[in-house]
């Protein structure tokens, strides 16, 4: 069981890493707009440079 002396600190360090990541995410404002984050993945990034088509109006 001597391996535990090594494994436990490793596990704790990983846990701390997770916590640090969460705190960073919180501080950088990633929790400000949860609805937006969900939908932004669907946004087209670089729209094709075709001339804009005028909308047909009813």
């Amino acid at each position, binding site marked *: *069981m001597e391996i*535990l002396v090594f494994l*436990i600190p490793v596990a*704790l360090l990983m846990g701390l890493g997770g916590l640090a990541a969460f705190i960073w995410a919180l501080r950088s404002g990633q929790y400000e707009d*949860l609805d937006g984050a969900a939908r932004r993945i669907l946004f087209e990034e670089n729209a094709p440079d075709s001339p804009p*088509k005028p909308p*047909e109006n009813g």
Partner: protein
Amino acid sequence: MGLDSYYSQRTLDENARPPIPVESTRSDFGHYTRENADGTQTLHLMVEGLHCAACVWLIERVLERQAGVLSARINMTTRRLVLRWDQGITDAKTLADSVTRLGYRLVPYDPEALGSADKKEERELLLCLAVAGFAASNVMLFSVSLWAGAQVEPETRALMQWYSALIVLPASAFAIRPFALPAWEGLKNRRVTMDFPITLAVVLTLGMSLYEAIAQTGETWFEAAASLLFFLLIGRYLDRRVRAKALSCAEDLTLLQSHAATVLDADGAARSVPASTVRPGDTLIVARGEKICADGIVREGTSTLDRAIVTGESLPSPVRPGEAVPSGAINLEAPLRVEVTAAGEESTLGRMAALAESAGAARNRYTRLADRAARYYAPAVHTLAALTLVFWWGWSGDFHLALTHAVAVLIVTCPCALALAVPAVQVAAASTLLRFGVLLKRPEALEKLDEIDTVVFDKTGTLTNGDFRLAGEDSSSALRAAARLAAASAHPLSRALIRAAGPVEPLAGVCEVPGQGLEAPDGARLGTAVFCGASGVEGDTELTLLHYREAAGTIHRFAFSDALRPDSARTVAAFRGAGIATALLSGDREGPVRAAALLTGIADWRAQARPEDKHDFLMEKEKAGRRILMIGDGINDAPALAAAHVSMSPGSAADLSRNAADIVLQGDRLESSFAAFRLARRAMRAARQNFAISIGYNVVAVPLAMAGLITPLWAAAFMSASSITVMLNALKLSGEKAWKSSFS
């Protein structure tokens, strides 16, 4: 732009009126633009007219393509845009115009002035949550392995306990602050709130575990303390989210105060002033595309308004001189001169904001019960824990065992479920209703709405849209004379008469006999046939009639047609489908009332009902044990509404104080009444469930804990489970989905 496939596939609703494009906004961007240290400028704006993520995408792309823009980002939860640009290349007006040209409206605001304190608190809470969660889950590594039966030597076990202590003690010191600080504040003021037992429980658990780790005489409970904090913080965070939704509703409404209005001076010069300084009696000039910042009456100009912020509907509605306009409406077509009647807190938006804020303070039967219980709870909890300690110590002589059981009791008796959840249901339901235009004047209205078994409709203005039109042409002098009398009354028929006659000078000294008509000083009368002495040769027409008797005695008849609302029949059917009996009470003649009853499917109807008749009808039914929801005219029909168990009235926030109903429905959809009823039912059901869960849990868990059958860890698990279940139950009632699903 990449929208080609969208445009080739979409279809348009031919029945919808095309939206009216807005040319330019008059807004004081300069006032709100901030300079940054690196020479760029930043502006915070509220965006109106957003429907979905595609709107956000469109606005951000359009802005990003403008020269000089460094970043443009819209927060979809709060609908606020943050814009940053290079001052040398472009300016706020150009950028704003590029968006308003698309049909959206932008209102600049000062981010400092809005609830940033609450945001910080929420972040702190989330941080404590994260730290507690980290501690709990990592310490579980040790505990779970031990429970699973790992055979370890005592030294290893001691090592694990010390590691747990090392993690949990600092983490708990950090994460207990949301409970410990209020508990300390309460103690200083000699008040014991529920935060105190929680803090006590955690501190005792930690202390006991530390002692065990040093003395090695038993089990440690570090993971219990950390898990307890973790789950309690989840419950508290969820509670904040529910309240934050209600608050941001209020914030959006008060944002109106933060921009500029144009006021006409006595000498005819136009001045730009902050909207918060506008007073009743001022004359506002509202340009095309501008938002009206106070309630008022149009004095000059004809235009159409978008009242979406007040009623939730965005179809433009026309306005003319003499008509009232609510604050928050957007002027779409032509400039208007508006005389202010109510501003700031007294205005429509001001009142709605106040209602939104007070949604949290609402008290229903369960909250009141919970409040009373809370007062006895804290002493009861401590007493039970002390009893457990004394009993077990005496019985077994083992202080450590006794303390363990006492701590378990402390944890398990926490009535967090009771305290948090029932108010959360109320806040969630009330703020959902407010967002969709249903105003609760009295908080008990929600509870009462749940109890009804009959709904009684008025006809004019409720089942019909109150938009009377004069049938047939009539430009006679009699019409104008009658209109002079009618100018003294707010009755829908009077207003229709005035609309048909054109602007007339009101007659002085007119007195109104409620339910009958108006009488002029010279003896002329305008009103029902009986009131004007007309004999009943009217036929059975479906039109509503108004009689006018000149001072000389000649009797004229004006016929009005009044269309049913498009959703009246649907609403009546929905109530019937839910097992609610329906009835129709109207002061109008038999012809129109029978037609309305037929069209909406109501079997029980009465015509020619005067206010006293309506009152008696309702009292009779109430005495027979029925609980009635009366939907009628809150301004003209107050006695009838007062006789019902709960009342609703179509109206607006501007008339809130004059409106005698318990609930005011804004907008033109009668269906909202049914949706409000359904939401009230679901809210009360959720409140009952939550109450049952909290009480049931305590009844079961407390004896078990006192009997020593629950370890502190299980106590934490049970208590948290009850707390979270109850919060999630309340959350179901908030948001758009909850509202939309209430219509069926």
